[in-house]
């Protein structure tokens, strides 16, 4: 019986990256084709991993383990459970869509794809690693490529946005790194291996005093990436100015690495501290939901609306993390997936609109449904998904989070529901101003995404949203098999 080899998910794109580096810069068609294959292959492998994962048996599967730096106990340890197999699927679909919509990039194509592929490989590595060192290592690989991509291919305020985003994220990462090293040292196990540390700490938890200062370092560090209020300001401007593919990947997937890290390294390994600190995070999460939602209401720039919307939705993830029950945690992982696909889809659509109209300003746009019915319809569906309309994946995820939160944080949950209403208002406003009403005459000649290849990325993401929204069990069984053990360890 064949089982998927997880190293291939890293090595194949690396090989593709090597090929892209070797091709002369003027052969852009060849470069695009290689890049397409380079992300398609790991996507297929990710689907295979997801399908082959045995959720009845649970635990980490397809494990590969090679010692790497022996004195420190660092090992090249790959493996997936229900959570990261889902994250692989998210990354696979998003990265494929991101590479395909990059057809619109015409300048410095080779450098663009090299940087994009490095970002994608780093993210794959982070989701595959079961070693804390390698998680961090891969997670930081993306930082500089993202900076360069925003600074080179971004829109007007790109240099400011690139620097702000990078410095915030690296500051967060540095704080988290100190927390992770402290965690490693205080276990006394001389290993960065997540599985070993999990087993040990489940038996002998760290002293509460130690947990209580390491936990906030890790949560604050990754919280900055997760746009925890008040450290979210890098995100709206960063996503607005970034090239579309980076907005898609960052809002869709890279941010989710932080949530993933908080679940795996903070909450599961230091449950006592989690019970002490997470209510505070839940409070900040509500500020995220309501405040960022209200700010999104005032925006006139489509990408800024999506940026603030993304910050606002991270609030639900953090609220769910603070629940400590299976239903809430299931909702969190579900939402990581659903929001990732939805965010990638919306940024891709806005990127298409911007590329055609050269503006994102809602005051100038209008009536776009007339000239681009396909894109407009997709955008409306993405907006419905975001607002939590049943039938889309986000509905299931948000309802799970809210149900999980109800027992613990009654009042906060009321505000969280209010956030959904705010989401609906600003997105409907965006649809009305941008896509309905009279068509601005200067946009009359614009064309829709007409060919099948042009439509494919949007269809792929939308199909996933609807499929997972209508058949929640497809992914809930996977999620449930892993969250069960986590919730048991934090009870």
């Amino acid at each position, binding site marked *: 019986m064949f089982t998927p080899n997880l190293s291939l998910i890293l090595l194949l794109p690396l090989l593709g990256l090597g090929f892209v580096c070797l091709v002369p810069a003027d052969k852009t068609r060849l470069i695009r084709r290689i890049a397409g294959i380079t992300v398609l292959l790991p996507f297929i492998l990710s689907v295979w991993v997801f399908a082959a994962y045995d959720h009845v048996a649970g635990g980490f599967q397809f494990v590969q383990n090679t010692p790497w730096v022996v004195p420190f106990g660092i090992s090249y340890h790959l493996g997936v459970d229900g959570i990261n197999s889902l994250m692989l699927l998210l990354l696979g679909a998003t990265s494929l869509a991101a590479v395909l919509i990059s057809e619109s990039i015409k300048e410095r194509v080779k450098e663009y794809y090299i940087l994009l592929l490095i970002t994608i490989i780093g993210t794959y590595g982070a989701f595959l690693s079961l070693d804390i060192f390698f998680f961090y290592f891969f997670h930081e690989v993306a930082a500089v490529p993202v900076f360069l991509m925003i600074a*080179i291919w971004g829109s007007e305020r790109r240099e400011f946005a690139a620097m702000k985003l*990078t*410095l915030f994220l690296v*500051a967060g990462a540095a704080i988290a*790194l100190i927390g992770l090293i402290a965690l490693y040292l205080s276990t006394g196990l001389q290993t960065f291996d997540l599985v070993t540390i999990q087993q040990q700490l489940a038996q002998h938890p760290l002293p509460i005093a130690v947990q209580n200062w390491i936990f906030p370092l890790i949560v604050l560090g990754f919280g900055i990436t997760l746009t925890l209020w008040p450290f979210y300001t890098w995100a709206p401007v960063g996503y607005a100015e970034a090239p579309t593919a980076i907005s898609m990947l960052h809002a869709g997937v890279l941010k989710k690495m932080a949530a993933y890290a908080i679940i795996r390294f903070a909450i599961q390994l230091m449950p006592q501290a989690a019970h002490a600190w997470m209510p505070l995070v839940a409070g900040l999460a509500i500020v995220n939901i309501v405040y960022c939602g209200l700010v999104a209401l005032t925006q006139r720039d489509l990408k800024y609306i999506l940026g603030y919307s993304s910050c606002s939705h991270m609030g639900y993830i953090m609220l769910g993390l603070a629940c400590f029950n299976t239903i809430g945690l299931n909702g969190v992982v579900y939402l990581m997936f659903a929001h990732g696909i939805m965010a990638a889809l919306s940024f891709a659509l806005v990127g298409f609109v911007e590329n055609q109209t050269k503006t994102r300003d809602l005051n100038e746009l209008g009536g776009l449904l007339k000239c681009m019915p396909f894109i407009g319809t997709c955008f409306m569906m993405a907006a419905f998904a975001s607002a939590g309309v049943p039938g889309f994946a986000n509905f299931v995820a948000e309802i799970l989070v809210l149900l999980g939160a109800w027992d613990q944080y009654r009042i906060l949950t009321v505000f969280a529901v209010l956030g959904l209403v705010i989401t609906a208002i600003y997105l409907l406003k965006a649809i009305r101003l941008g896509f309905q009403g009279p068509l601005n005459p200067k946009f009359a000649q614009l064309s829709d995404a007409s060919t099948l290849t042009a439509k494919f990325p949007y269809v792929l993401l939308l199909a996933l949203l609807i499929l997972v929204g209508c058949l929640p069990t497809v992914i809930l069984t996977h999620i449930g098999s892993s969250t069960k053990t986590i919730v048991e360890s934090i009870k």
Partner: protein
Amino acid sequence: MFPVIDWSLVSLEVLISIILVSLVVVDIVLPKNADKDWIGIFSFIALAGLIIFWLTQGSLSGTTFSGMFVMDSLAWFFKTFFLIAMVFVFAMTQEFFKSLGERRNEFYLLLWLALIGMCLVASSADFLLLFISIEILTISLYVMTAYLKSDALSIEAGMKYLILGALASGFFLYGISFLYGTTHSTHFSVIQSYCQIHAMSPMTLFALVLIFAAVGFKIAAVPFHMWVADVYQGAPTPVTALLSVGSKAAGFIILIRLFFSIFGAWHAEWGLALAILSAITMTYGNLVAMFQTNIKRLLGYSSISHAGYLLMGAAAGTALGASGINFYLLGYLFTNLAAFLVIIVFSIATKSDEIADYAGLSQRSSLLACTMLLALVSLAGMPPLVGFFGKFTLLMAVIKSGYIWLALIAGVNIVISLYYYLMVAKRIYVDPPRHTAKIIVPSKIRLLLVIAILGIVIIGIFQGPFLDAAMAAVQGMYLSHL
């Protein structure tokens, strides 16, 4: 009775001296107007031979010259380090003087002399030999710094370096004399046994501070950093490269020998002081580097901040900290030399070291741009490059020793430093070029650039064997206190 000398232990120094003397002879014999750079070519061949010879000598250990000269794993590690660094510096010198065209021969001789000095520093087991070897190194550096007779900046740099360097030497001797006064010896092993028995007295504290001032001058730690920016900017670029890598590493061997063996027993007294100094040094270097417009000055201040990071390892006072210093320096070697290679090629092509002129470099030479980007990002400490694992090891060392606050300050510094490194990266990759002429990179430099890139990436990803080497260097250390 004349002591028995084990010549095999000093083989490297003897070979270098023979090479140096024969090069002097060649220089005299050669016709004055010879076009070809014979001394440079001979130097290269000799250096290649020396490296091959030296890599087979890894098992050398012992002391000779009545215990003044020690050959141990630490000395082997650092001598290998210096030899590799010299390959880059020689190549830079050849390029540099190709464009200047005059008086290059003496420069090579001075480089060889500096190499002897560095190797002797690595092997000193007595304060007198240590002083002499530091002087051999530093005096050749003074001359080389002021080498460009017609360049006012170079003369000024040489003068500043000489005055402050002489002051540091004075401190060093004064410190040794106090130490001799209390311990009645200049020999490391005697002083170490003294420290193990006695507590620190005001007199030994005074001696330690004076000696540290001299070492701090070499590694460019605050407050002994005053010379750095002007000297880095004014000196011929190969000298700047040597200062930033070779001379700094020489300082750190002394530091490792001082604090991990000789005064190791007094760790409780000096640990906190070094931690505070480390925090001030890295913060000062990074804050000032943000405002630089000249790339050599920028790397000068960045080199101060790296001295601060490296001091974290000394503050930790553990084997992990010392191995961290070794590993960090190894990464720093490839990273910084890669940056200086780019600076040399760029300044020869454009006659400029201004960061503003680096605009659009990626469109003028993709290799130079890529090397500079990797070097800067590695200096900032981003994975998968070597600078990350070095910082990771040092952070681990200080957290393990309980200096969480120092780790947090280092974290803040990483962010500050990333800002100015990325500003340069932005110039190179984002800004439009002022001139569009392509920059041609000579094939030898191209090869070295590729080697440096491979060093930065491969050590960054396959850290294991290199960390093992760095740890082995500490474990087999003479008079180890760890």
